């Protein structure tokens, strides 16, 4: 069975490449790009540590009435101390897919980002539960998958997918049945992550698990004067054992003509540790502990200048990482960001100055063309 799955995955690559070539020939290609340079200074034990990440991104798009081709390739150059962990350079194919519009459904084949439930932080139905603290909206890597979306109305749809991880040894499949009722998006979602013993769990998590796992639950996002969202997911194995709950609840509101935006989201992972002594990296959930909160404040001073303040808090050990940034758009497509982060935890706390460092500063310049 496992061999059959691996062979199927390999066989899928060929039609994907063929369809992508086909799409390229039958529509007008469009090439866009992004360069981004992050200069980081980390203070740990009162010593400065310097790193620099230069990211170059090229996106090739090709759209027609029936087809869409999308390829997103990224090349990273590393300088300073970060090379000890990541080497001198890296390349990543984030997306490479073709989408076919059949009228009654859309079909996507290739390396594509799959996400069920409400997009955003602490989503239990997110397949890739890693988080980039310096940019929470940073795009996540795709997986090799076949996805279909069948509209059941203007704002309702059934999304289903099946895919493989980079080594083709694990698979993931799932569905999301979404509706819109009275200004609320709501739905049911389910995921099955099939895995082999001693293999990395699906996608990026470093943790190892020994059995296939399932997730099923519900979610919603809507308006009750303030924006409100929640999700509830139940994790279990094939014998409906070793189960636990993962959930979130959040709301947002804006002031002064939406120039000031406040948002907060609480997260619960039943399997998480209740204190630093029993923290363990959660392979199926975010971070280590049971309870978290993320609160953010964005103030858009004008069209060019904005201020962000974000606080990630581990509510079990009361440690936080506080991130403040200033963003300035200099010209069309050119933006600079200055960011600084402080940690409040001590000793073995998750956001501990002893483990991670006292603070870090980041200068980012990003150009889109």
């Amino acid at each position, binding site marked *: 069975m496992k061999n059959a799955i691996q062979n199927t995955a390999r066989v899928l690559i060929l039609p994907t490449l063929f369809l992508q070539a086909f799409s390229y020939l039958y529509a007008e290609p*469009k090439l*866009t790009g992004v360069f981004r340079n992050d200069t980081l200074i980390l203070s740990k034990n009162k010593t400065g540590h310097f790193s620099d990440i230069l990211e170059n991104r090229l*996106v090739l*798009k090709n*759209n027609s009435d029936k087809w*869409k081709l*999308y390829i*997103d390739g990224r090349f990273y150059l590393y300088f300073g101390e970060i090379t000890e962990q990541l080497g001198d350079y890296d390349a990543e194919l984030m*997306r490479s897919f073709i*989408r076919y*519009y059949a*009228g009654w459904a*859309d079909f996507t084949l290739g390396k*594509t*980002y799959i*996400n069920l439930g*409400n*997009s*955003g932080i602490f989503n239990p139905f997110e397949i890739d539960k890693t988080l980039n603290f310096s940019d929470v*909206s940073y*795009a*996540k890597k*795709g997986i090799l998958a076949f996805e279909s*979306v069948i*509209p059941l109305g*203007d*704002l309702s*749809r059934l999304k289903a997918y099946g895919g493989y991880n980079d080594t083709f040894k694990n698979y993931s499949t799932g569905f999301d049945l979404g509706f*819109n009722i009275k*200004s609320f*998006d709501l739905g049911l979602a389910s995921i099955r992550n099939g895995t082999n013993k001693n293999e990395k769990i699906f996608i990026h998590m470093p943790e190892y698990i020994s059995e296939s796992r399932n997730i099923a639950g519900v979610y919603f*996002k*809507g*308006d009750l*004067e*303030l*924006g409100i969202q929640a999700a509830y997911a139940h994790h279990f194995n094939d014998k409906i054992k070793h189960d636990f709950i993962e959930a979130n609840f959040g709301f*947002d*509101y*804006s002031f*002064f*003509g*939406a*120039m000031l*935006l406040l948002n907060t989201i609480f997260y619960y992972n039943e399997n998480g540790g209740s204190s630093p002594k029993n923290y363990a990296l959660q392979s199926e959930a975010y971070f280590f502990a049971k309870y978290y909160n993320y609160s953010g404040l964005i103030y*858009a001073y*004008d*069209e*060019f200048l904005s201020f962000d303040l974000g606080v990630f808090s581990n509510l079990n050990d009361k440690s936080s990482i506080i991130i403040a940034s200033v963003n300035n*758009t*200099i*010209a*069309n*497509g050119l933006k600079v960001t200055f960011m600084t982060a402080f940690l409040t935890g001590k000793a073995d706390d998750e956001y501990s100055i002893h483990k991670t460092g006292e603070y870090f500063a980041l200068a980012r310049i990003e150009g*889109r*063309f």
Partner: protein
Amino acid sequence: MKYKLKFLGFISLWIFSFVQILAITPEEIIRKVDKNAEFNTQSFAITMKIQKGKRTLTKKIEGFGMVNGKKSFMKFTNPEDDGVKYLKIEKELWIYFPDADDIMKISGHMLRQGMMGSDISYEDMMESGEWEEKYAARLLPDETIGGNLCFVIELKAKVPDVAYETQIMYVEKNNFVPAKVDMYSAGGRLIKKISFHDFQKISGRTVAQKVIIKDTRRADSLTTVEYGNVKFDVKLPPNVFTKEYLRR
């Protein structure tokens, strides 16, 4: 005698028209404004210039509208935002981010936010007409705007879910289109000034080709929206006002 009759006829017609304009109620004026803004389907292209002092950002947008803007779809085509798409249905908004290939529902209160950092909010951009339904009108003394004599109408919200509590609309007397609208908060503070320019006749409607928006809360800033290729009663792409169309 023949000339006298013609003259009398002309004078009578002029007096009749004059009396008619004098007798017009504010409700009738905004009804005419609404009538001009009515459409079933619409397609458009927009160039939006966001100015702050000497700095300017330019956004290019293509889009479709339906039933006076109750449904609208917009796609950014300038290189920096290429592929970002908006779908608005009534008071709900979804944004498609091409980097993530994902759709995000935006909370209703965020409709008041400046679109892509501009002075124009999602609400301003995507809503049109239906003044009579949403506002109670009162006629104020006439004023001249850009050389055109205008009715001045005070509009007070009569339904709860409108973006601005009070608006002062300056309606050109010769064609019943707004030349300028000042928008006020519930506390009576002037929030925005919108002026309309370069009118053209398109499919029987008088349509401004250039709109200038000034958000008074933002110092030294101005947004200019230039319309191009505006068409009414067009055949829209199938399923354009659906979430799935955003992913195209």
